[in-house]
């Protein structure tokens, strides 16, 4: 899995100061060279912790470490709760990990980020409808996973109840027959 050059550039450009930009370019370069180990080290050295979290997410996701990527996104969201890129990424990974409730949690964070941006609309007016549609899709997938969890819980309860009822009935029948057989022997 190689770096996405577009995303790497986007993350590099997201930096506002030239010092930070230089640091981020170091991360981007290591990432593009396939040195994910060095990219992570460089990301940890970024002076902007939110950007560092975004880079950690990007590198770990590319390395196929989904739980690690999710942790990175979570860490970033605690610092920047209205960062829609992080919440979107976290929701995406939570869905890939089949974790419906986590995905829904991140969808809510994403919704809050969208709402916060609505007040100063204009910059993202074009991309907003697509993002809203994507959020709705993620939310629907998360709800499907939650429904599966509920079905699984119901199936477990059903299986446990049926098994215990049949086992109990069989054992009772055994005891009754054993007592009956003993009584008949004593009578004889």
């Amino acid at each position, binding site marked *: 899995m190689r770096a996405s050059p577009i995303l790497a550039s986007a993350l590099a450009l997201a930096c506002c100061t030239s010092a930070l930009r230089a640091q981020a370019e170091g991360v981007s370069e290591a990432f593009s060279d396939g040195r994910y*180990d060095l990219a992570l080290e460089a990301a940890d050295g970024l002076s902007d912790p939110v950007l560092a979290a975004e880079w950690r997410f990007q590198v770990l996701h590319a390395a*196929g470490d989904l*739980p690690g990527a*999710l942790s990175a996104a979570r860490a970033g969201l605690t610092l920047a709760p209205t960062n829609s890129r992080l919440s979107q990424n976290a929701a995406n990974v939570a869905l890939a990990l089949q974790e419906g409730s986590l995905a829904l949690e991140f969808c809510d964070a994403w919704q809050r980020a969208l709402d916060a941006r609505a007040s100063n609309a204009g910059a993202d007016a074009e991309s907003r409808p697509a993002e809203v549609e994507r959020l709705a899709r993620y939310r629907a997938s998360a709800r499907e996973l939650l429904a599966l969890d509920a079905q699984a819980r119901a199936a*477990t309860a059903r*299986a446990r109840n049926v098994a215990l009822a*049949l086992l109990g009935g069989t054992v009772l029948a055994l005891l009754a027959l054993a007592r009956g*057989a003993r009584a*008949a022997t004593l009578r004889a």
Partner: protein
Amino acid sequence: MQRASASPILFVAGAAGACTMAVELAAVRLIAPWFGASSRVWTNVIGVILLALALGYLLGARWAASPRPRRALGWSLLAAALWTAWTPFLAGAVCRLFLPDGIGLDRAIELWTWGSLASTLVLFLPAAVCLGCVGPLALEVVQRTDGSSAGSAGGRVLAWSTLGSLLGTFVTTHALVPWLGLSWTFLSLAGLLFLLGAALALAERTRAAAGLALLATAAAAGFSRLERGAAPQGVALLEERESPYQSVRAVEDSRWGEPVRLLQVNEGLDSFQSVWKATPGLLGPGYYYDLFALPAWWSGARGRWKVALLGLGAGTACRVLRGASPEGVELEIVGLELDPVVVELGERHFGLDPRRERVIAGVDARAALRTLERDFDLIVLDAYARQVEIPFHLSSEEALAEMRAHLAPGGWLAINVGGFGFDDPVVAALSGTLARVFRSGVGYRVSASRNFVLFARRDGEVPVPSDASFWFASPVGDALLPALSVPSAWSRLVPCSDTLALCDDRNPIDELQMQSLEQARARLADPR
């Protein structure tokens, strides 16, 4: 006055014994598509059959006191025939009741136990109770027929019943299931029970019961079939077989563009045993087989590179190694596979070429390893039992020591193991045990999967990303090394204590597997 012969009744006792074992062995196979065939499932099936037999013995004992025990014997056999005949038809509906479609077992870990137990009780308890009645009733009939003592009659009935069980065990595994398939195995057993029951019922002039049973059993012969899980759209079934060990099928999945062939076992659990893509070489992210190519690159191999694959499957690792080994390497591969049917499917659908690879099929890897040379450059342990567990006798300290003894100096052992992290119970136990044998080693997490490949080396060190020897310039390196270089992707193996080491004497690998699933769910819910 000359007494009648008890031989027909002894034959009935033997046939019932055979059917009991056949039902028990086939039962696990029948529910495996939903619940797998783990130790828990086997334990549930054996437990339910034993409980049912106990109930049947007492029920039979009560009916034996009736004036016409022969008639009760006939009815028991007819009832057992009926239930057995309809079992394949009921299996899908009953198992889906406890494990609805779309729910993986890792989502509901308790269903491994409760779901398989409930399904086993519903599907097999009634027939096994009826079969349990046969013993005491047959004993009574024998005693009344030839006037023998209880001890004499009991001894003969038990002997015939046990001999029947013995026959049923072997015939089911080696003939009925592989040749007839599951549905017709159950229907054949039902047919035999029906014939015996009908003969007794007719002799006792209970024609109505025999007639009704005939209708119901005949109807089952027409309709009662195990409903196989339908392949999703875009997935084509290439071949389906029953082997002495499992249900195996080869499918081709074209849903994601490039066709991928998968060898699936028992259909369930989302797992596959082998993968095929049209071009030999690396399979891509998510496939652990790719990591088996690394030792040859890390060793700078040239010339002969001798590999033993313990758990050949349909030959995926052969194709990966042949397409992704360094130039100038001449591969010499020995593949060991327990299930010959898997090898047959490998030859037909997965490009396995037995003229090029030395394939040893139908033998256990550990036993066969002892007969092999001791100069392997790489031994790959990729054996799975019952879909989820590395067989305990292949994951013990003693087994790993035997593998080490078969490596050339500097040779590598690579083990595929499923888990959720380096602290996962299965990964940790196997890593610790491996490190005890080799004194060092490194585990690598496979990108975008739940697999880890543990590497250890005889008289050598496994490189880690901070070593210059880890990196090599090649498309294989470009594809594999970046993802392995992040700190969360690798871990040095540390020898575990005596008490935690897996050994032949104490190897709780299947229980560790369950702990692994339970911990993974808990960890994801709260990753902090």
